[in-house]
């Protein structure tokens, strides 16, 4: 055990204090949101709700789970994540595998073609016009198709595929396997970690993306939950939802004199937590994979 000088001990203590502070600052907003979501809304408006609910209620969550719009939005988001992630990971990995064969015809043009799109893009307006022309606007598919190929992900896949030992694919080829067959039967099973990582990144992207729907979709029942959430936060959607639920009575104390348990703030918090729960629950388990994925992508890419 190397003896630390007193200066070094102080340094160590400072490091630990700073990191603990970081942990607290990161987690506090969550905790506060949880507390507000379980607290009666009108009571929260009086202030001082920070570490523990004062007037406990489950009504906010009840409204979240009962409002048809939110249920629809949840479904859309889940569908989008499942379909979008599966399709995107399949197509991108196929492209990456193809491009991992550096000796094929047209290799250089293919690579330049893909990498160029990382540096130059048409921009928001031309994409908007394009999607309109393709009749994708206001459909479910505008949430999935335009983002199917991610060149960044493709590079991560490709780097991984190139590191696989040649022997693996050679023996499959000798046995008469086609390239596609080799990909499906040999490469994919061996590439679990990279598929898990990129599936996670893609799924998170689809779950969190609110902007695509915000500009391309106005049908309310096609909005994913992140877009609904954005409307709740940035507009009066929350008040409107309350009004529908409580029969138009959105005052602080309703006719019977009971303290109003749901306000737009408490409802926003509850919705936010429900929307982020899936991610919070999943990502710690995949930490090992995405840490590796980030490295492969950044250092090699």
């Amino acid at each position: 055990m190397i003896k630390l000088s007193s200066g070094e001990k102080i340094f160590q203590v400072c490091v630990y204090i700073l990191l603990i502070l970081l942990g607290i600052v990161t987690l506090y907003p969550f905790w506060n949101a949880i507390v507000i979501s379980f607290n009666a809304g009108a009571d929260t408006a009086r202030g001082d709700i920070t570490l523990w609910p004062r007037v406990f209620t489950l009504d906010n969550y009840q409204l979240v789970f009962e409002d048809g719009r939110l249920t629809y939005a949840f479904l859309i988001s889940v569908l989008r994540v499942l379909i979008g992630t599966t399709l995107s990971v399949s197509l991108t990995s196929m492209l990456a595998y193809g491009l991992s064969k550096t000796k094929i015809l047209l290799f250089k043009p293919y690579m330049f073609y893909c990498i160029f799109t990382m540096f130059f893009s048409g921009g928001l307006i031309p994409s908007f016009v394009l999607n309109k022309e393709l009749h994708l606007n206001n459909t479910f598919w505008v949430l999935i198709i335009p983002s199917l190929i991610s060149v960044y992900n493709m590079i991560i896949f490709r780097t991984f595929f190139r590191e696989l030992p040649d022997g693996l694919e050679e023996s499959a080829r000798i046995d008469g396997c086609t390239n596609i067959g080799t990909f499906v039967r040999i490469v994919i099973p061996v590439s679990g970690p990279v598929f898990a990582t990129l599936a996670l990144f893609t799924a998170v992207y689809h779950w969190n993306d609110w902007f695509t729907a915000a500009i391309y979709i106005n049908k309310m029942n096609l909005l994913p939950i992140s877009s609904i959430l954005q409307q709740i936060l940035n507009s009066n959607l929350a008040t409107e939802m309350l009004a529908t639920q409580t029969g138009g009575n959105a005052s602080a104390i309703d006719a019977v004199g009971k303290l109003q348990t749901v306000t737009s703030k408490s409802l926003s918090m509850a919705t936010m937590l429900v929307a982020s729960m899936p991610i919070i629950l999943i990502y710690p388990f995949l930490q090992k994979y995405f840490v590796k994925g980030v490295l492969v992508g950044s250092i090699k890419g």
Partner: protein
Amino acid sequence: MRLQSPLKKRLKREWDIHLMIIPGVLLLFVFNYLPMYGVVTAFQDYNLFKGFADSPWAGTKHFRMFFHSPDFWTIMRNTVIVSLLKLVFSFPAPIALALLLNEVGKAAFKRVIQTVSYLPHFLSWVIVGGFVISMLSVDNGSINILLMKLHLIDEPINWLSESNYFWGILIASNVWKDIGFASIVYLAAISGIDPHLYESASIDGANRFRQMFSITLPSIMPVIVIFMILAIGNVMNAGFEDILILTNNGVNAIVRNVSDVIDTYVYRIGIQNQRFSYAAAVGLFKSVINVLLLIGANRIARRSGQSLW
């Protein structure tokens, strides 16, 4: 039997490789290359009903309009300042975190802090913005509650409506969201440093703090420089989703004189005001500057030994 030509032989072996590549290429063509052609709208007076082919030609009219408009200087100023602020604060923060994490001996503590710090990265800006709005709100915002309890202010401040605070709030939110995830790369680079360097340094009498600056930091300089090049190339992309959410999807005009950057301007003018050609021109202007900056930054870095290509 005639020998097959080399080309035929190659194709026979590779045909299904190309089959795997084609769908990706097609998708990129439609959704990445076709919109590039769409920049032609920047030189037209694009009319929704007439489409590309029939909209009248406008030349550089929109560009000149943009450069002469009163908005131009405000937007450019905001874009540059927001990017610079992000460069000065958001860029070093993950590096500092990686350095700190590297000093931690207890593996369990390190892992817990890392897991916790990665969380905000996985949340959408809607949620992060929601937290920020909640913490800063006038009724029950924790920041206001804290400041009042400490007797630093008498009344709650409406933070998001004051131009002076906007940039600070924006940068702080960005750091909160990404400091953990961005530190992954730096931490990995640090773990690749030869331990013998540290041993000989401590024999020479350097303490951990000194070692951090003399060994750790210089050793990961290549990684830092690469990311800095990318960050500089990104100066025009000062922010978008974060600004939108914090200004109520662009509706909050009170702080617009500090919050409007090129991307939010294009969004507002193009999508909300439907001035397609003008917005496309502004967007194209931005892309060109981006490419120039990237090339310029790389050239500077190349002289110091690092390069993107």
